[in-house]
């Protein structure tokens, strides 16, 4: 269970971006959250991914209430959630090759020895081939880099995936390929998915159910 209860969050305590957002995902369930730009859905996605401490409210992951955020979150919770952001250029270290980018979570959790096998397996799953893995982000296209960012999110086998506008920058074919890779992973590992976006057609096709932003949160007063 991923349970957000009455979450109020923002970047200034006096002026939160949204109030009282509640959302529950069953294990293995995929939920699409639809909202216009600027409504705060990305902030909610950051809370769900343990990357942003809410002003108030609770996040419970598989029965355990989250009390620390970002680096203060215990590793077993942090690694239970994989996250993919909208802009691959801003979420990839330009100094790393795609291979090292995908392996980074393994390195950070002291599991470096698993890297060769795991990276090869995931590269195939997201459709990255050949010498692409030896290149750095400036040498690949947005679509190829986003494929690597998805592989990075899956490398620790998370039970939950948060995709924040994962395909907004991409063409139709790359979008379909990335969604197929996510669904293949979810089928194999039973992971739950929170997909945040504004493309109704895409989210309704992709997810078990979709929610309107206005139905799960109140705008800031």
């Amino acid at each position, binding site marked *: 269970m991923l349970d957000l209860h009455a979450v109020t969050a923002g970047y200034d305590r006096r002026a939160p971006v949204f109030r009282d957002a509640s959302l529950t995902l069953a294990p293995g369930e995929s939920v699409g959250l639809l909202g216009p730009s600027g409504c705060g859905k990305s902030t909610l996605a950051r809370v769900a991914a343990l990357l942003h401490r809410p002003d108030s409210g609770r996040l419970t992951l598989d029965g355990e209430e989250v009390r620390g955020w970002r680096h203060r979150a215990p590793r077993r919770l942090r690694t239970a959630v994989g996250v993919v952001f909208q802009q691959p250029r801003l979420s990839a270290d330009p100094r790393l090759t795609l291979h090292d980018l995908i392996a980074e979570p393994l390195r950070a959790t002291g599991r470096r020895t698993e890297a060769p096998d795991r990276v090869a397996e995931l590269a195939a799953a997201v459709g990255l*081939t050949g010498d692409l893995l030896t290149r750095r982000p400036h040498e690949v*296209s*947005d679509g190829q880099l986003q494929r690597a960012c998805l592989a990075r999110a899956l490398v620790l086998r998370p039970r939950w995936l948060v995709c924040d506008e994962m395909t907004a920058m991409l063409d*139709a074919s790359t979008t*379909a390929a990335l969604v197929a890779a996510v669904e293949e992973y979810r089928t194999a590992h039973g992971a739950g998915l929170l997909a945040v976006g504004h493309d109704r057609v895409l989210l309704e096709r*992709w997810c078990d159910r979709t929610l309107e932003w206005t139905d799960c949160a109140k705008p800031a007063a």
Partner: protein
Amino acid sequence: MTPATTVPPSATPVLSVRDLSVRFRMRGGRHIAAVTGASFDLAAGQCLALVGESGCGKSVLASALLGLLPGNAQTAGTALLHGEAAADDAVDLLTASERTLARTVRGRRIGLVPQSPAAHLTPVRTVRGQLAETLRELNRTPRSALPAAVRAAADRAAFPAELLDRYPHELSGGLAQRAATALALVGGAPLLLADEPTTGLDRDLVDRTADELRRHADDGRALLMITHDLAAAQRIADRVAVMYAGRIVELTDAAGFFGTPGPRHPYARGLLAALPERDFRPIPGLPPELGDLPGGCAFAPRCPRATDRCASAPVLADGVACHHAEEPVRA
């Protein structure tokens, strides 16, 4: 049915591109073939959507038309920009001097609606300041007439007059897009070039931005929209050019392309089928590297219909460049 590469006789093309190629010279004598043999016409009042995956050469083509390619680029072919009257001399955008492009073409004969307006606008000046400067520069608007001209220019792109004193960072994505469009329209350019005008906008804003661009085409401008957003293209385009690995592989009427009979090139069919409202199935594989293109058809390695014939590159004939294209429907 008229061949897709010609325009109706009533309309003289504003832009005629013939065999446009762009090569980048790289270190070690390597070359990157970003655009190869692109040809199309674009008439006033018409919208041509150039669609394709990222990295297929769309934006390089736009830069070539504006003379904004980097120094290591080599161009071939012609891109004639015709004047309003038949007597006006056509300018070849590929060979014109920087002086000609800067003083008579950019802003005056081609308006650019940029990909990311937030990066295109000057961050330290208000929208009013930027519109006023552009009006003075392009139209020599006298100081006394500036306030009214600024409001009129903002109004043309539906930019709210009460927000004119805002700085770019105080604008939402949609409003910044309108401010950039207002700047592109100031010079009254007969050709509008929109490079990914809807990237990063949500669906409602995409529709609104696309509709506004369409309105400017209906006002008698020619509109070249470069996009990977097929929904936006479907919404406003009269014709569609599909680009793959630097080549235009299909050039056809938008209605037939998005409706029946549908696209004829296997790549275009795959691209449309990948849409979530259709099959939602990706084209297998990745686009080829532009520095290392296969000898024959560049799509053959990913193509379900590929045969030995695909070892020779197909030419664009009757609107499609493929040895195994869907048969055209003969009425």
